[in-house]
């Protein structure tokens, strides 16, 4: 496969300017003749559809929820980065660029990341103009806080609901375009397949989730903004309906999938408490601005806490191990997520974990409350504290929070070039669905930045470059053999699942045959063997276990109801069927990458003090995988990463 990243000529800081100056455009009269499909209404999808609609294109936008405002971007808590340097603390486009490359452990494409940093400021301007109520100081100007992996305060926030406010801003802009008629909304519709005609993306098959009808939509280009695949681990901070299927069907139709093994594990989530548990709740990274993470210094204290004989407040100051401050004095509690997560796991594995399971560490605000007063802490983090209290039933103002790492974000995704176009011409991918900007680890508050950068400021330019010659092809018809075939394939797939009608009596595990049962089992395998620490042995085990489980699933699952009705069990089933295939690819990718970088930690490749050990000589590339058919090992093409601007270094936060 030929991977042309289409990075423009010129010095790094001029590439985007040069690109925009020389790209092709579509004139206003012709924009009206062009149809674009946008799948997903999160930050990337909503902002792209709103911008493209306002420019004059005809846009169809799809979401699986009842409203575009429900997309999972809404749950982002802490903030959004931008190189505004409003705090006069030495920030700049260059520094945000460097922090992001370093945070990603030198596995991201320089040109994309630089562009991201370059447009970051305009995002804040745009959001303020839309009425996003960012936090302000008493002079009425915008306030900032710090996030992991940075030594400046460049994170803009709206209490602990930044994602919600940014999404509502984009949703407002989208609603305006819907009212103007430039965008047509299809809620409770799920993309089931991509239709490729003569090598170009020409439409989708969508399932109306209320009626079960399969519907055809044709367009000159398709934008995929469907988020990540973190739910493959079952327990994650993702929403229940977040899934990887839209990206996966595109992959099966020829779009390369890049770096699937790069998965982010967030250090501060509420720990697991029972088998019935359906999701893990994130406690924002912003809490690490003022919260201090610790475990007891003495094993006997940790054991007493686990038995419930002691509480955190019984451990005197000198017996507490603030292990992040100890190991990483320069960044302290604000090390990047992968580093903080591994450090928590290291302490718990060594026997110092707290909580009844021993799989938790403390995040303590006692110092902050003493220093700033309870009022200030409440103002900054009130809604997060409330959320914690409601879930755990413990008052975090009086007792330290208990937290543990959990799956949060996927850096891997569809391979895209500088224009955010996948290897299928006419298919673009934005936001978490693509792989482009975060390398092997994403910095906190950068997901919102990337989603909005892609949607507001990148796609509206780069798509025109593709669409310029599409004005000649006329209206795209959905009445073609390719659409017939795609629809028939989808119908067949659904019927095959419904026909399984697994019988508990003949089960390997007779306890249950629901989709969730299999999903939980897959999640456990992935977390145990393809989670925070991986090695050849664990990955080999995972490969076998996933294959076995998948075989059981296709024989034993039971899906009630039919395909012609509102049927959430069926939705879960086809998403899980795709996850089984994706799981294999994640494992293959993790197996081939014989190095540790960012969120991908191979225990065979670590330094003496347990830090990641990269192998730049052999692995400084993007691994782009090509689908070869069910049960066939995918082929991999390397996109070498050439660092022309930045000096490669060991990632050091000490």
């Amino acid at each position: 496969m030929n991977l042309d990243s289409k990075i423009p000529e010129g010095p790094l800081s001029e590439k985007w300017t040069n690109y925009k100056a020389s790209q092709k455009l579509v004139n206003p009269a012709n924009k009206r003749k062009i149809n674009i499909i946008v799948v997903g209404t999160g930050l990337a999808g909503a902002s792209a559809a709103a911008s493209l609609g306002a420019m004059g294109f005809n846009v169809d936008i799809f979401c699986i929820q009842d409203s575009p405002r429900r997309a999972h971007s809404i749950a982002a808590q802490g903030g959004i980065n931008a190189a505004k340097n409003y705090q006069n603390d030495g920030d700049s486009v260059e520094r945000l660029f460097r922090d992001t490359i370093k945070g990603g452990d030198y596995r991201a494409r320089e040109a994309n990341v630089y562009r991201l940093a370059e447009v970051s400021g305009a995002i804040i301007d745009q959001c303020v103009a839309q009425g996003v109520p960012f936090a302000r100081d008493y002079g009425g100007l915008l306030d900032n806080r710090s996030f992991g992996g940075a030594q400046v305060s460049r994170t803009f926030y709206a209490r602990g609901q930044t994602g919600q406010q940014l999404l509502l801003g984009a949703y407002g802009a989208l609603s305006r375009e819907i009212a103007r008629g430039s965008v047509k909304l299809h809620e409770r519709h799920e993309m089931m397949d991509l239709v490729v005609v003569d090598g170009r993306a020409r439409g989708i098959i969508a399932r109306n989730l209320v009626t079960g009808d399969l519907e055809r939509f044709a367009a000159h280009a398709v934008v995929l903004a469907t988020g990540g695949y973190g739910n493959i681990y079952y327990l994650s901070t993702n929403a229940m309906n977040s899934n990887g299927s839209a990206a996966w069907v595109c992959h099966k139709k020829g779009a390369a999938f890049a770096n699937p093994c790069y998965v982010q594990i967030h250090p501060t989530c509420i720990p697991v408490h029972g088998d019935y548990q359906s999701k893990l709740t994130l406690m924002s990274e912003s809490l690490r601005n003022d919260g201090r993470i610790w475990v007891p210094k003495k094993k006997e204290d940790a054991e007493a806490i686990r038995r419930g004989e002691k509480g955190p407040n019984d451990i005197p100051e000198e017996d507490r191990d603030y292990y992040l401050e100890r190991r990483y004095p320069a960044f302290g509690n604000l090390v990047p997520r992968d580093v903080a997560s591994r450090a928590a796991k290291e302490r718990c594995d060594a026997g110092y974990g707290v909580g009844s399971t021993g799989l938790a560490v403390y995040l303590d605000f006692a110092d902050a409350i003493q220093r700033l007063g309870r009022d200030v802490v409440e103002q900054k983090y009130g809604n997060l504290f409330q959320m914690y209290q409601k879930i755990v039933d413990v008052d975090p103002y009086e007792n330290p929070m208990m937290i543990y790492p959990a799956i949060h974000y996927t850096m891997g995704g569809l391979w895209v070039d500088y224009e955010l176009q996948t290897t299928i011409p006419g298919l673009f991918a934005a936001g978490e669905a693509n792989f482009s900007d975060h390398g092997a680890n994403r910095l906190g508050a950068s997901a919102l930045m990337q989603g909005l950068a892609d949607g507001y400021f990148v796609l509206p330019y780069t798509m025109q470059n593709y669409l310029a010659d599409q004005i000649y092809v006329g209206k795209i018809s959905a009445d073609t053999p390719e659409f017939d075939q795609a629809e028939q394939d989808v119908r067949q797939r659904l019927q095959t699942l419904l026909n399984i009608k697994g019988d508990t009596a003949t089960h390997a595990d007779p306890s249950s045959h629901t989709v969730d049962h299999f999903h939980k089992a897959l999640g456990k395998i992935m977390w145990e063997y393809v989670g925070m620490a991986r090695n050849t042995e664990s990955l080999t085990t995972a490969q076998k276990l996933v294959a076995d489980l998948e075989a059981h699933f296709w024989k034993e699952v039971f899906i009630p109801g039919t395909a012609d009705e509102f049927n959430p069990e069926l939705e879960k089933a086809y998403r899980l069927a795709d996850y089984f295939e994706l799981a294999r690819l994640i494992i293959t990718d993790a197996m081939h990458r014989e190095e540790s970088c960012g969120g991908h930690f191979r225990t065979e490749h670590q330094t003496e003090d347990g830090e990641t050990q990269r192998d730049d000589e052999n692995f400084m590339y993007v691994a782009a995988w090509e689908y070869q058919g069910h049960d066939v090992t995918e082929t991999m093409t390397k996109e070498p990463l050439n660092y022309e601007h930045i000096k490669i270094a060991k990632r050091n936060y000490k």
Partner: protein
Amino acid sequence: MKFTLHIWRQENARAKGHFETYHLDNISPECSFLEMLDILNEQLTNDRIAHPVCFDNDCREGICGMCGLYINGRPHGNDDGITTCQLHMRKFHDGDEIWIEPWRAKPFPVIRDLVVDRTAFDKIIQAGGYISTTTGGVPDANTIPIPKHKADQAMDAAACIGCGACVAACKNASAMLFVGAKVSHLALLPQGKVEAADRVRKMVMKMDELGFGSCTNTYACEAECPKQIKRQNIARLNRQWIGQLFGRDRRD
């Protein structure tokens, strides 16, 4: 813990609904309400007793606004400032009977069981619940300072998650708190003032057109709002509405 559940079952929008009774045992008090329903659905599916109970849910951390059940006569159940997904079984007593219904409001027709159609809210927002900006071409974010207390008030109103509990709680199925929150959020900010008069007029007209009832100031909406949106937002909406009637475009 042990529970008796009476759940509203309705096959589709046209079908006649009814309550069905189920019994559950061995539920952990740490279990969330929706996880309790997951367990019920697991049993219904495995024992092939009935189609699993359909209910909307997504983020399960109280922010997406997707979930919303009427539990023992209260939207989002018997606790303050939470959504259904944040309700835990420890809030109930062992052996409790629990009545579970969908939102009851004409503008929110039932799709199946406990799932309702809330697209009416989207239509109200589309009528004018935004600031008309196009991408790019806006001033620097710090060009217009906004007093902190105004920004904070705007944020209080903007915290609405659009779940519909206010409508479900209201005996008139009024959407005044939902509309008031959006009108207030935007009217409190200098960027939103430009279109304030137009906005309030269009949103209120759309709300009426979609069949939401009138506000009779009983404030059940405020009491049941999971984000504790204040009734002052309704007052602000009324002020805006009267202001635009008399051509005073820029009141807040």
